């Protein structure tokens, strides 16, 4: 197990397996400290702060909100939003602009009202 794996097992939120990526977005874009960022994300998702750390709860909630789930050999979600598609929805759910989503809209002509 590499260093990243050890950190992940010992102390990591779990990224897309839970809500770690969403909490990270609030830290990165809004400079929120950990407690504030967790509470903000929990409020937006309609779950408890503890739920944010639970892969089962979050896999279900992420599916309901179409904000991206881990894709692997046991669980393909081709009929759901993931990657750039999911980030459109994450921007709405968290109420923060996501740069690549804004650029996608712009390059596709949607920013000019083509949607």
């Amino acid at each position, binding site marked *: 197990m590499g260093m990243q794996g050890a950190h992940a097992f010992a*102390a990591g939120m779990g990224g*897309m397996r839970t809500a770690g*990526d969403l909490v990270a977005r609030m830290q990165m874009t809004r400079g929120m400290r*950990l407690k504030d960022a967790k509470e903000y994300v929990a409020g937006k998702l309609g779950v408890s702060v503890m739920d944010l750390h639970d892969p089962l709860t979050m896999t279900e909630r992420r599916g309901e909100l179409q904000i991206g789930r881990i894709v692997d050999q046991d669980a393909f979600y081709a009929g759901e939003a993931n990657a750039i598609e999911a980030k459109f929805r994450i921007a709405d759910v968290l109420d923060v602009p996501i740069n690549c989503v804004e650029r996608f809209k712009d390059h596709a002509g949607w920013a000019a009202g083509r949607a």
Partner: protein
Amino acid sequence: METRLPTRMGDGSLVTMTRSELRRDIEEGTLLGAKRAKVAPLTDDELEHLLEIFASAAAVVAVDLGDQLILSCDGTGSQAVGSRVDDMRHWEATLGPDLVEMYNMDYSYKAVKTIVNYEQQLVKNAQFMVTVPLQYGAMPDLGRYTQPDGPIPNWSTLLPLGRVAEARAAQEEAVELSVADMVFVADHMWEAGVDGVDFDTAGAAGDGDFLATLRAIEVLRQRYPDLGIQVGMAGEFVLGMHGELEYDGVRLAGLWPKEQMKLAAKAGATVFGPAVNVNTSKSVAWNVARALTIVKPCVDEATIPIHMNVGMGVGGVPMTPYPPADAVSRVAKACVEIGRMDGL
């Protein structure tokens, strides 16, 4: 006779120590850190907690459920298998990073500038494929601007000759070039759709290196209010290679993490990563006690998230290419439960 417990040295080697020996190392580490950084040592409760973490014989230790924090993984991926976009996707799916970082093997903004269009396209491609936030990272790397690699007279050769004024002028000139390159690359990354940029090992070449980073951040914050900006420091205090450089009226030479963080936040950073170097001849327990003592005041007064640098050779993680999981997990647990970090 006291039981001997398996534990690690700062170079990663496996040794055994008694509980009393571990306690002595932890006490010595915090007192030394407190003396060096002129801060308070860890409290008795914190020392006892740290001892419990290091006296455990478990292969891997962990924080309590609900106490997990954010992992910002600078230098995501091995770059040894598949493409760099594959690295982002593979890590996202298997290693649970909360954000990923695209980087070039020549981890320097000056080097990236010459291939920025190629790097831009990779970032753009990756952003179609990943869900977690993606930042681009490199080093400010002020030394790269000096002769023979760069155009500026080399202050490391001027200073031993006593040519202090020339050495200072060279650093001031390099700062201007470095700011321009970091802003240039970040501009292009923003255009490609990046979520954030990482200025990693800031201050590696001293106070000029840190000044260039702060000034680049200031420009980028004004241009891009929603850009994530992470600063990861190179060491525990800023080396005074110039000695007289200031940012916002504060002299940079000799700053410790709390003051470093304040300036980074003022410039516009959204995440700050303090770094404390590892002493390889001391135990990991000694190193963690010292590192947390130095960084704790920074966390206490932070207005932005603090992501402690806990990669190879910093923050207590052993200085070896393959840091053992038993040591890494103890560092992580201590950073959460005693250091109260926002991320690693």
